[in-house]
């Protein structure tokens, strides 16, 4: 199995009747994801691509035993979806929604942590995660991934696809690929996922795709220096980004003097990672690892 999810993982889609929700439900079903339920208030009793829809997620969990959920609702309804999922007993919540007010995220994380400490959240503003050939929870294009032995943790969407595509072409498959989300406040962070990859027998090397802003890469470097025991290749995007400017999404912003691509790369290098300077060097570095 991949980390966190496998072929059997029973998935619910929150906001399944929406345009995005319904579209990606179809793509995920095609990929083989075991979507057992959807929810959408006022739409209970309908079906979306054969998936039963409930008014509340709690019914989806009760009747269909959903274990993981995908949040695909507009930003102002997303916090409610997180609370609902946590209370319904969902153990892995993948929040795709972009644009949630940060204090909403902050309160939701704190409340869920206090009351349901075992609930894991990926995102918000995450493309989801994929265990290639097994299951896909998110909006990633499944066809470009290939099963294999490299784990990927990334703060980016398209860049991850780009790198995974190149890896697949070069014959390097992926065990699990996780997009942690592009927001400044996210649930599972690099370090949380590194711990899972560290214990995952399928994963023989890890690739981290970082960005300017925050301290996730620095934390990863700290962890790498202590307990992590697999080869790690890292690329941190944004070496040319001017400080103080938001690059595309909310989380990608470096404050003066800290959270720059350079400082992050340096920290990772010092801790023993192969830190490369362009995305296309990731493949070379991983080929080196497996030589």
């Amino acid at each position: 199995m991949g980390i966190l999810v496998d072929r059997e993982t029973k998935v619910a889609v929150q906001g399944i009747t929406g345009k995005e929700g319904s579209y990606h439900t179809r793509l995920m079903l095609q990929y083989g994801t075991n979507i057992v339920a959807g929810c959408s208030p006022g739409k209970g009793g309908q079906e979306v691509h054969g998936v039963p829809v409930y008014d509340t997620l709690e019914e989806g969990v009760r009747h269909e035993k959903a274990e993981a959920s995908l949040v695909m609702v507009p930003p102002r309804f997303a916090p409610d979806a997180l609370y609902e999922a946590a209370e319904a007993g969902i153990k892995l919540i993948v929040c795709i929604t972009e644009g949630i007010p940060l204090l909403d995220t902050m309160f939701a994380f704190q409340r869920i942590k206090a009351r349901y400490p075992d609930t894991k959240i990926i995102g918000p503003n995450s493309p989801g995660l994929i265990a290639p050939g097994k299951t896909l929870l998110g909006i990633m294009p499944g066809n470009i991934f290939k099963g294999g032995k490299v784990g990927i943790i990334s703060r980016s969407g398209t860049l991850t696809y780009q790198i995974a595509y190149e890896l697949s072409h070069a014959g390097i498959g992926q065990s699990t690929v996780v997009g942690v989300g592009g927001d400044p406040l996210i649930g599972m962070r690099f370090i949380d996922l590194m711990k899972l990859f560290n214990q995952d027998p399928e994963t023989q090397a890890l690739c981290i795709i970082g960005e300017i802003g925050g301290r996730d890469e620095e934390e990863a470097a700290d962890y790498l220096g202590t307990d992590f025991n697999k080869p790690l290749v890292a690329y941190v995007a944004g070496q040319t980004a001017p400080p103080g400017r938001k690059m595309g999404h909310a989380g990608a912003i470096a404050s003066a003097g800290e959270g720059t691509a350079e400082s992050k790369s340096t920290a990772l290098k010092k801790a023993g990672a192969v830190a490369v300077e362009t995305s296309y060097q990731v493949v070379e570095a991983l080929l080196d690892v497996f030589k």
Partner: protein
Amino acid sequence: MKTLEHEGKSIFSRYGLLIPRGKVVDNSLEGKKVAEEFGGEVMVKAQVHTGGRGKEGGIKKASTPQEALQWTKEILGRKIRGYTVNKVYIEERVNIEEEYYLAFILDRSSGLPLFIISSKGGIDIEKVAREEPERVRRLKVNPLWGIHPYQVRREALEARIPSSHLTPIVSAAMKLYEVFIGEDALLAEINPALLTSEGRLVCGDSKVELDDNAFYRHQELHNSLESYQEEDPLERRARKEGLSFVKLKGNIGVIGNGAGLVMSTLDSISREGGSPANFLDIGGGASADKMEAAIDIVLANPRVNSLFINIFGGITRCDEAARGIIAAIKNLSPQFMPVVRLGGTNEEEGWRILEDSGVEIKVCKSMKEAVIKAIEYKKEA
């Protein structure tokens, strides 16, 4: 979104924080009039979206209305760190006994509001933290517990604020937390927080950053803020088109889908010896309309003499993206050959469509090749 000093102060005031009387003016005669109204002794302060105004001559003391007129005249129109001063804030002076520092900031690492207090205000807090760390205290606020006076008192005393000043400090900090939560702020800072000789705590300056994602909860406020008018005109246009655009200093115009991909494109250009003119993320979909707007914005920058479009086809397939690119380029007919790199789902069909289109495009298959071509293909200036 960051507010100007007077905008932040007006928010503070709504929450019961004390601010000196002040008025915004855009001409020197009005500056004089307001100074007269306030009794002559005033501060004249440039209203610009940047710090360090003081050092750049953007903050002046006036002792008479005539002096206020002069300073207003001198400051208006000036450029401060790239920002033109269009408005000046005339503010009454208060009797300062001490200058403190108070702030709440959303801390990414802990995911919590961070309360910062210092017995030394009026200068950059990072500098105080470096030079006199014992005078700065930081407290992570658990929002479910809230922040309470006892915590502020404890931190204030630890930061060496005398206990006789606690009451106004505590009251101000509690109100500042209400601003932070109530306005969806990412930062709410009072620096300096002036303790007056009357024992009141008055906000000497304001620094507020609001969460754009929470716009819908504060529409009236956000619409009233002046900040949007002062961005770069191209950035403003991009925002309206729903594009994520940041102007840089080079000459190669860059368009891509996905923030990380565009950042990595910029990184590659720099590494191969080129210099990007901008960051532009068109997001998902890559429709012809969006692509057209994107190219138009990038080419409106007179420094641009090369265009690099870098699209990874995921759910949106490369063939769709290719059709969008061609339609956009046909409509705009740029004066130099665009370098287009397509990769991902249906890439081969995408390449074929681009090559068969009859439009002058350099099609590249790998990113590295594309970057090198984009650097080479620049129009002679």
